[in-house]
């Protein structure tokens, strides 16, 4: 009887499977989550810790952070640098990647290699090499905008690889030819056809660029610009609870910035359209 009904064995077996595998899944997911979440929880706890005038601190450290004018100025400096870096990277790398894929496919392996160099070469080496190069350009060297140019180099592997994958996923050659056949110049094709189809690649690469530019400490500290990470470090030297509060705030602000970027980048397109461009 049971053998005649094909549905029966499946309904019997399924709960048994559910009992074993998900447990292991849950374990690993929890373990992985703990790895990231526990430090954040400790950080949050610490930002409320310590005693002030014999009372528990509460939001004291947060209030201190917001009261410090250097907080806002260093934060906005980092945001400004991050956005400039993103803009500069996109302006530089999107046309480059497009052109290489379309007209110089033989250069692709070369670009693959070049684009990982900033990964392979330690940042300190880059800086030691860059400083003498940048020093003669005093008008830029003394301004924090010099960091834009340096971060573009750091962010290149991420943005370029993201663009490279995006370009591989579309039928670039045919789309470009179809567009030219419709009367479009190469530039029009880039703006009207290629960029809209690379949106997710550009957004993804921009996220990482923002994260890098917002978090970079070594170079801005070496060049003595008071960016946000440098400010956090300096606070941490004196008041560790305040530094924790500051770190929590910086996490939240960075997330907010990324969400804002995502919303702007999506430009009101539906999820179906996003899926279609992939």
């Amino acid at each position, binding site marked *: 009887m049971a053998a005649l009904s094909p549905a029966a064995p499946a309904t019997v077996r399924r709960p048994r499977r559910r009992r074993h595998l998900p447990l292991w899944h849950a374990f690993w997911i929890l373990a992985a989550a703990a790895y990231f979440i526990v430090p954040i929880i400790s950080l949050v706890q610490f930002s409320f810790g310590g005693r002030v005038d014999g009372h528990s601190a509460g939001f004291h450290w947060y209030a201190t952070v917001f009261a410090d004018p250097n907080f806002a100025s260093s934060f906005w400096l980092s945001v400004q640098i991050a956005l400039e870096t993103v803009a500069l990277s996109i302006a530089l790398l999107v046309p480059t990647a497009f052109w290489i894929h379309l007209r110089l496919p033989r250069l692709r392996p070369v670009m693959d290699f070049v684009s990982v160099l900033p990964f392979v070469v330690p940042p300190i080496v880059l800086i030691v090499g860059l400083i003498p190069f940048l020093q003669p350009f005093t008008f830029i060297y003394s301004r924090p905008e010099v960091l834009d140019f340096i971060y573009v180099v750091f962010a290149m592997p991420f943005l370029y690889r993201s663009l490279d994958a995006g370009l591989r996923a*579309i*039928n670039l050659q*045919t*789309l470009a*030819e*179809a*567009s*030219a*056949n*419709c*009367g*479009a*110049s190469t530039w*029009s094709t880039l703006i*009207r*056809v290629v960029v*809209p*189809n690379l949106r997710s690649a550009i957004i993804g690469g921009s996220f990482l660029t923002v994260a890098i530019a917002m978090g970079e400490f070594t170079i801005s500290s070496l060049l003595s610009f008071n960016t946000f990470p440098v400010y956090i470090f300096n606070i941490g030297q004196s008041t560790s609870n305040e530094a924790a509060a500051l770190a929590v705030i910086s996490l939240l602000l960075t997330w907010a910035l990324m969400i804002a970027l995502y919303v702007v980048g999506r430009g009101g397109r539906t999820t*179906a*359209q996003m899926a*279609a*461009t992939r």
Partner: protein
Amino acid sequence: MARVELRGLHKTFGGGTVALDRLELDVASGELVSLLGPSGCGKTTALRIVAGFETPDAGEVLVDGVDVLGLPASRRNMGMVFQSYSLFPNMTAKANVAYPLRIRRRPKAEREARAVELLDLVGLARQVDRYPHQLSGGQQQRVALARALAHEPAVLLLDEPLSALDAKVRVQLREEVRRIQLELGITTIYVTHDQEEALSISDRVAVLAEGRVEQIGTPAEIYNRPRTPFVASFVGTVNQIDAVVVSPAEGAVRCGERVLVVDGDLSGHAQGADVGLYLRPEDVVLVTDEPEGTPGASGTSGASGTSGASGKVRSITFLGPVTRVGVDCELGALVADVASDVALGLGIGDPVTVVVEPGRMRTLV
């Protein structure tokens, strides 16, 4: 509309592949010419040179007498439909079709109206707001056709636009391509390797082999009067028969024991010279060697007036309305197309008489 001339187009790719070998082609205004040929014969290369995606090593492409090779693809005013799907994935069908007009900065109302009108023309009035991934392959190629027509190009270029589609859609769509082409009277070059497609929709067919035009003519000319063995065998199925010229003046040849009169000019051949003949399967008539009273397998009234060659049935392949019967006979191994209901009476090994109507046996002209 426009007249297109290809003059001495030559193209060698890196590695020494000669893709085009002094290709010559004239397409009259409003005409649909197919480029038909086997894979790798240079059809796509020729079309891409006309469209401006490839540069020839030598030769000219004239549109209404003006050489366009100096113009970039974007300024040639041609519409092209590609073999692979080429719609912009981020745009709806309507936006895709309106794209050439957007590039030309036409007013929004005008381009939307034109896009809807063209989508209606290709039978997609209800799919205007769909994205390419929401359309079937056939629908995508319809949109691509509409897009290629949007800016009223002087020339329409199609590179195997139907090859990714299944057989039924292909037949239906090729008829629509032809209907639209006639309706608009647009000069069209249609690349295909499907002979049936080429014969059914073209004003003229250019058969290409190894980068040059083997023969160009109306579909009937190409089919009935092939000029080279390549064209004879590439277009349709053909029986090839070796013969010896008996009388060039009368067009008589000897095939085995038999003397036959052929259709075609033998004046270039000396008496006693070897000559290649060909015969379409539908021109081979089979008569079953049954006693008097049974009708012949082909339904014709027997062997009167022609020499019958006796043979045996070697193979039977059902093709739908006709059945292709392989026969071994004195003329060699032949295939004959027989009405399927008639062929039901045949079995492998059956003796048959092969009859060829006078004039059906042809030399290459």
